[in-house]
């Protein structure tokens, strides 16, 4: 009998999240040790705070900042205003998540000492192959 695992990825790795946001086209990303206030489209300081911030000037004139707040358990919560969800909709979020999943998989494999063998893409699925030399 074989079993398989399905994992719904949760944003936990700051480095991979920033890397994935860069892949989504945002090259100017602020990373803060302490959460900073987000800025709204009127240049107003919002009450929402985040550790990872894409400033509105990099998103669009009428946009608000986009942020990712690190929670006590180490996971990140995405903060996107309703206005910006028109551009950063569920499809955008899914693309980001897919990039993050691949980045964090590669990082985890590297940390475990696995040797990367190949990457295949078929019909919207990516398959990463590693070898575990220890076994």
């Amino acid at each position: 009998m074989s079993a398989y695992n399905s994992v719904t990825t949760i944003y936990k790795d700051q480095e991979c999240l920033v890397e994935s946001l860069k892949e989504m086209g945002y090259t100017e990303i602020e990373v803060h040790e302490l959460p900073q206030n987000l800025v709204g489209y009127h240049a107003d300081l919002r009450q929402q705070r985040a550790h990872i911030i894409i400033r509105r000037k990099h998103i669009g004139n009428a946009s608000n900042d986009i942020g990712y707040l690190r929670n006590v358990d180490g996971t990140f919560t995405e903060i996107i205003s309703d206005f910006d969800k028109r551009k950063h909709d569920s499809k955008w979020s899914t693309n980001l998540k897919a990039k993050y999943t691949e980045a964090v998989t590669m990082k985890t494999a590297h940390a475990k000492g696995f040797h990367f063998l190949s990457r295949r893409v078929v019909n919207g699925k990516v398959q990463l192959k590693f070898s575990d030399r220890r076994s």
Partner: protein
Amino acid sequence: MAEIIITIDQSTGDMLFLETSGVQAFKALGRLRTRRASYVLPADFWARQVFKLIRWFIRDDSAGAAWCRTWRGPWLVDTTPTAGVVLVGRWMNRQDAIDAEVAFLNSWFLEGACQHTTA
């Protein structure tokens, strides 16, 4: 040297991988759900019924389960829980059947199509 294969669905961002040694670290990357993928069973009908009966009553990590795995072939691969098919082919060596099972499932995770199978 063991292979670890991770499949990422770009339409959801979720990942799939078979339960093998070395995958523990990947399980911690999010919300985990573990499910049965397939069975390797005796190809002979009556042997298969006895096998299922024994395995119904004993744990997968028991000595009895280990004994069942030493039975002589031929073996078949039943992927009903996932792909819903029994693979074409019978294997005298159980490890060969498992290898075919793993190769098929990883191909199915990626391509979703069933090749070399019978309903």
